[in-house]
């Protein structure tokens, strides 16, 4: 069983908390400590952002995180090295890389998949690679025992949901709103209706993210979702902290969110 499947199985119906941070933000030397800090607070799975120069689907908060990491020239190989370092002391918490296709494409799908597996990565979500263009990448990921994670949006019609269901492994990531990461127009009732409809087609767990800003919304989303993804809010915490306080503040915030969800 993959680490992701094992994680959901071990939760026995309780909901997973999936925090997101960008690798290398604010400095690559802090990333592994921050990942452990997320686990200390109760993270079930970690989504680790791969910095990209043109993060088209991200709002200003995660754009800035990417820019801070790129000041230190953090590339995909560096991110894999950070995951390998994290794995030296944590062998259970799944790590899902989230980013854009180009760095992966340039490294080469097979080389990337093999090195990501060796580093201890469990899943990969490339935001700008829908199933239509994903055949080659997905095959390389699956061959290396990595789960390709796909997005489903409020605008995704039923026929596409069925198509995505055929390709999805690990979990699917339901984008809770029309917008970029960190937007403020989350409609919880609408999300609940959509998740209920998705269940007819989706066999893997359903995570929900984009726009979850506090314990109350995390809790409300966890009523229907299998996992709650929080990104921009955590990145803001890193932004507001000093390098000395970032880990402690992240742990505290993650613990608050974890305590709130079902």
């Amino acid at each position, binding site marked *: 069983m993959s680490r992701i499947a094992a994680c959901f199985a071990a939760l026995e119906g309780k909901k997973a908390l999936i925090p997101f941070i960008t690798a290398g933000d604010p400095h690559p030397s802090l990333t592994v400590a921050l990942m452990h800090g997320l686990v200390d607070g109760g993270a079930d799975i970690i989504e680790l952002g791969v910095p990209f120069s043109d993060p088209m689907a991200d709002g200003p908060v995660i754009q800035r995180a990417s820019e801070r990491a790129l000041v230190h020239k953090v590339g995909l190989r560096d991110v894999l090295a950070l995951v390998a370092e994290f794995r030296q002391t944590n062998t259970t918490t799944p790590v899902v890389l989230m980013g854009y296709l180009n760095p992966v494409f340039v490294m080469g799908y097979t080389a990337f998949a093999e090195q990501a597996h060796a580093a201890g990565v469990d899943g990969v979500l490339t935001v700008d690679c829908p199933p239509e263009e994903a055949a080659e990448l997905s095959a390389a990921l699956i061959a290396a025992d990595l789960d390709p994670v796909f997005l489903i*949006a409020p605008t995704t019609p039923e026929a596409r949901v069925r198509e995505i269901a055929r390709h999805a492994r690990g979990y699917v990531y339901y984008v809770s709103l029309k917008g970029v990461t960190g937007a403020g127009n989350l409609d919880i009732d609408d999300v609940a209706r959509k998740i209920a409809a998705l269940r007819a087609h989706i066999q893997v767990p359903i995570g929900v993210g984009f726009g979850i800003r506090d314990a109350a919304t995390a809790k409300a989303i966890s009523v229907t979702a299998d996992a709650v993804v929080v990104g921009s809010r955590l990145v803001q915490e890193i932004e507001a902290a000093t390098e000395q306080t970032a880990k402690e503040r992240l742990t505290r915030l993650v613990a608050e969110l974890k305590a709130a969800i079902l």
Partner: protein
Amino acid sequence: MERYDLPDANGHFGPYGGVYVAETLMAALDELKNEYERVKADPTFWEEFRHELKHYVGRPSPIYHAKRWSEQLGGAQIFFKREDLNHTGAHKISNAIGQALLARRMGKKRVIAETGAGQHGVATATVAARYGMECFVYMGAEDIKRQSPNVFRMKLLGATVVPVESGSKTLKDALNEAMRDWVTNVDSTFYILGTAAGPHPYPMMVRDFLSVIGEESKEQMPEVAGRQPDVVVACVGGGSNAIGMFYPYINVDGVRMVGVEAGGHGIASGMHAAPLSGGAGVGVLHGAKSYLMQDANGQVVETHSVSAGLDYPGVGPEHSYLKDIGRAEYVAIDDKEALSAFHDCCHLEGIIPALESSHALAWAAKVAPTMAKDKVILVNLSGRGDKDINTVAGLAGITL
């Protein structure tokens, strides 16, 4: 060569193109693709389009024999396709009208656009005023400084110009921001993309709307020059004016096609915007796979060109394909050469060309002397240079 019929149903030109966007936009792109397929087969749409091009834009744009310049160069005869004489001063308006008519059919009341030099922003603001649509134009903060006359023109036309402060603050970042707007307002908004790049169906759609450039040229050249050109040449940033000129000539044997990219400070300096001719690899940006200027980690690098409209690290996917199959050649002209052609065109022909188009002119001026006097080069003079006078003055140390 076999009949050229691309892209395929999924928007691929060989290995290039495609639909590389976040899931949220997939439904909108499907809707757009389906609607465009419908209008493609609907003669009333094209009648309306041609009517607008004739009565509002002033098409067909003439072809002009640049006799004095040709004589001075002493070689091939240079002709200009006068896209600078279109309403709003560039080829961009024909694409903006096509997309705005489509937006109207789809019931969208709000349009957005990205712009580099401001020509596509002005074109979009113009058609939004003409058809009564709300208009937001995303423009890099750096470009806003370089192109202040166009910024004011957009405002006069009732558009909101949104400065983009992220990344390199130029065209690519404006495109990112327009995509973010679209993903947020996907129900109400039509994204009028300004170049033959982006996710399918944009590269195909923009090409189809701008093919009027090459179609007209094919009709006009026998009249004006007595025959088809030996070479057609156009500048390439994203590549919209070039594909509009090239596409109708792809199946015409014996017509050489040359795309001129921005060489900036020179290819060797690394400070340029020439993905096709500067040795860049292939990548994925703004929804399509194409040649892309990037570093070893796959991060898109900052580009440089004296002309804001060419200052773009990527290129439309069809150009990547035409390069690979050898049907078109791509070359670079640096800032200095482009500026020199800009001044020559002003002095010898009484035409102030856009700095973008000056790259194509510079290539023609460089190559014409090596060709016989009975050979014909057709340059797509894609826009007029009024918008660039501040830049050119600034380079000469003059404040206007």
